[in-house]
């Protein structure tokens, strides 16, 4: 299995072998990182793009390679204070998306959130993630972290959690994949920032290379990042 990861990682770096500003992308979704990377690399041949599937790999490589830009959800980008947001992704004119609590057969009882287990994708480190989830669900549930969006569905089916916290977009994808009776509960405060592009402080020349390339992405490629426009 590690050989497979090795191949994926090698391919990822091969794909980013051309000279150009380094752009690191971290956007947990149902699509595999390599598929997103291939699509981005085709549209931005002048950039060295690497897409990560795990926060830990992103953190390690940012520290080692200091990329010109990071593209990630706004809350993830905040973890890298040296990268200042220059482009904000939008979907249908909004810079945020709604998150919902999804359960099977019956709606999740939000009054019991602090005594329940909730499944989430670990897009932030554990402590930060605890705070992030508490802000969205207005309580302090036990959190079951997974590394990939698709892992949330088995968490529900195996009844390992009472509900999973997902974006509305991912909920729609789950409904397409699953024939289980998925029931959603909308949350009042659960608005999460869409992907943004942060540029390393002081990298003004590279900024001129990165931002126009990202702005030129077509609808299909932008959709892989969960947005349909930049502002």
């Amino acid at each position, binding site marked *: 299995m590690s*050989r497979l990861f090795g191949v994926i990682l090698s391919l990822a770096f091969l794909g980013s072998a051309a000279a150009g500003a380094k752009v690191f992308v971290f956007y947990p979704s149902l699509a595999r990182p390599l598929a997103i990377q291939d699509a981005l690399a085709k549209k931005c041949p002048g950039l060295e793009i690497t897409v990560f599937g795990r926060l830990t790999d992103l953190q390690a490589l940012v520290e080692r390679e200091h990329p010109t830009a990071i593209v990630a959800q706004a809350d993830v980008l905040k973890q890298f204070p040296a990268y200042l947001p220059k482009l904000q992704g939008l979907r249908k004119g909004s810079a945020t998306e709604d998150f919902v609590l999804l359960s099977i057969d019956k709606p999740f009882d939000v009054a019991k959130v602090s005594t329940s287990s909730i499944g989430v994708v670990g897009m932030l480190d554990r402590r930060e993630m605890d705070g992030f989830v508490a802000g969205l669900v207005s309580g302090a549930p036990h959190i079951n972290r997974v590394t990939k969006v698709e892992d949330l569905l088995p968490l529900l089916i195996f009844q390992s959690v009472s509900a999973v916290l997902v974006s509305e977009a991912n909920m729609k994808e789950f409904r397409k994949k699953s024939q289980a009776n998925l029931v959603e509960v909308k949350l009042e405060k659960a608005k999460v920032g869409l992907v943004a592009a942060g540029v390393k402080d002081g990298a003004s020349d590279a900024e001129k290379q990165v931002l126009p390339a990202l702005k030129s992405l077509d609808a299909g490629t932008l959709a892989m990042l969960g947005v349909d426009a930049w502002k």
Partner: protein
Amino acid sequence: MEMKRLLPALLLVAGVSARAADRILILRAEGVNFQETTRSLEHELGPEFQCEDRVLGSGMDAGVLSVAIAKSRPKALVLMDNDAIKLYAEVQKQWRDSVPYPPSISLMAIRVDKAISGLQRATGIFYEVPGVTILVNLRSLVSEPVRRVGVIVRPSMEDFVRESAKWCKYENIELIPFSVPEDRKDVARAVRQGVRRLRDQEQVDALWILNDNFFLTPEIISGGWLPALERFRKPVLVGVENFVTARSRFGTFAILPDHYGLGVQAAGMILRLKEEEWELDGTGKVEQPLAVLKILNLEQARKSVHVKEAGLVEVDKVIR
């Protein structure tokens, strides 16, 4: 500040931080997959936990493990591989009821549920990927319906298939088992009969081949599976990467455990144990693995089904 006054303060801080870090003893087999799981486990637990990584072999026996446990006093053990579980069972047997056993989480072992049945204060994660995970992933990739899925099974694995069938019901998928007795002489022939029956009489939409060595010897593959599958024009799901290679003529779609994900899942169980003040009585529930890797032999798949191109972005490796 004078050193005399600073030193007690430093010691106090050191003492507090030493107390704050909960020790976890990892006992595992050698190999890259085990290393990967250990890496993700340690990362996910973070600095609040101090993980001690011990590898089986090189003089590790029940006596050495006993000493290691007594010395580091771990809050919990993580046991990776059946041999690690056996060793801890031996330690528990030696200790009998003289000292409280630290709870354990077992993973990356064949049939963890059975392997830990003799352990006290034990829980774990199955290594076998459950049918529902495999089949939901297949269904999202192909245009044809996936409602009835055949599986050839021996009696000692029937409980695993029954458990899988229970989860499959949530997804409106029915598992159709064909049982082969353990004492059956010509297993290759039984496999051929089973595939024929599942194809012709049960008219299944796909075949799930369990990761069970009983059915996967070279003789049974060449004399049973390969001839039987030549006329089976439906997706064949396997749990081994080698079975979906371009030359294998065997599987269509392989779903394998994601070792990094297993480490994250085990870390979650440790955190929950800590929340529950390390209380774990008897043998706890064994969890199903959540994270998987998907490998599709596209050419093989196209012989039997229409593959949705859009779904390929969700596959880890597409063999073209």
